[in-house]
């Protein structure tokens, strides 16, 4: 009968995790216990045979099939799960599901109307509850985005602490500029605005978007709370009038 602790030690030996002391103890035990030596030999042989199984090349068409599937079904990474998918979680295109698809579209459109109604933007002067102090925390810089457009110049610096994101904005423009940051409300929540240097800003806030409009030179920061620990994105758009001066999708990690 092999002692249980030596069965464990033999397995550790197979995995190459023995300390020199355990190794010496095992060697001594095996020399005294033929049954254990036999067990050890078998286990070592099993391990060797497993490691000798060859890796094989995947079929030549695997990559092509994968990429074709992505292309044919027009998959896009789900930074926001689509409305249809939220109704039909494992939907894949197939003619036999055309009826289900049509129902999904109708339901989706109906839900979208309701959704959009509940998402009306609230315009606010930048005062009161919207203004917050810079949060404490060990913020590290994630990325810096220089803005040198025709009518706007400046930068956005994104910083991250454990559960917070800080977007520091400095912008200068001769025209009224609109700075829009939109995001997935299931991933991020807007917490507030700080460092505002005067009252010439207006903010428009919804659960998945913050818009600021101002004229001249301004510096301020926006704070977001991370709702999930995964990689998320902020979409930055800067406009003057109807023309888009700058647009970038910014990763938050």
């Amino acid at each position, binding site marked *: 009968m092999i002692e249980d602790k030596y*069965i*464990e030690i033999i*397995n550790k030996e*197979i*995995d190459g995790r023995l300390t020199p002391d355990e190794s010496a103890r095992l060697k001594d035990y095996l020399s005294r216990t033929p049954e254990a030596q*036999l*067990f050890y030999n*078998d*286990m070592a*042989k*099993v*391990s060797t*045979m*497993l*490691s*000798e*199984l*060859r*890796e*094989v*090349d*995947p*079929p030549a068409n*695997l*990559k092509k*099939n*994968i*990429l074709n*599937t*992505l292309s044919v*079904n027009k*998959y*896009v*990474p*789900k*930074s926001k799960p689509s409305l249809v998918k939220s109704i039909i979680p494992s939907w894949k295109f197939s003619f036999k599901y055309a009826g289900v698809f049509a129902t999904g579209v109708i339901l989706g459109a109906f839900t979208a109307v309701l959704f959009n109604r509940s998402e009306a933007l609230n315009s606010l002067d930048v005062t009161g509850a919207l203004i917050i102090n810079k949060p404490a925390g060990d913020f590290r810089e994630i990325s810096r985005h220089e803005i040198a457009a025709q009518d706007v110049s400046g930068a956005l610096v994104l910083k991250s602490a454990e559960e917070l994101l800080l977007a520091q904005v400095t912008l200068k423009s001769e025209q009224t500029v609109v700075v829009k940051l939109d995001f997935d409300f299931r991933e991020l929540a807007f917490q507030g605005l700080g460092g505002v240097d005067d009252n010439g800003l207006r903010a428009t806030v919804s659960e998945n978007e913050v818009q600021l409009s101002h004229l001249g030179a301004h510096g301020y920061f926006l704070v977001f709370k991370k709702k999930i*620990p*995964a*990689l*998320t*994105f902020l979409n930055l758009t800067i406009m003057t009038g109807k023309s888009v001066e700058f647009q970038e*999708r910014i*990763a938050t*990690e």
Partner: protein
Amino acid sequence: MTEAEDLRLVRECLEGNIKAFETIVDKYQKPIFNLALRMVRAAEDAQDVAQAVFVKAYENLASFNVKYKFFSWIYRMAINESINLLKQRKQVEKINQNLRALEKTPEESYDASALSGLIQGALMKLDIDYRAVVILKHFEDFSYGEIGYILDLPEKTVKSRLFTARQHLRNLLIKEGVVAND
């Protein structure tokens, strides 16, 4: 290619760069296909699993948690996809009841020697939970912790499951005369 490189590719994919995803497929198609092949045995099924894994990975990239390694995440999908396929086809029962270790299948053309076929046959006789830990440890050389993440198990359970799996495998191979217990 490093973990940082993987993360960069993930970011680029999320920004809509399909070429970055192509690089991910290039890098991982062989290990994922082999993992699936060890799990489900039939090459055609392994190809289906690998294809489904990459499509799901692409669709769900935004939910990838950067705290983990990308390859652990995609291996986890491959294991789950393999298990789902086996369950769907009720192969677990079928294999346990009917598989003969020496029977030849067309898929054995992937394993050049009869010995490889025997080992793969013995693997297929293992309970699916045991098979997964053996594959991840012996073919992919993951640590107990990484296997724990992939299979969603505590490290201690991984260890004990691996030890038991090896003993089952030894007993199966003794029965086949591959390991001589005398």
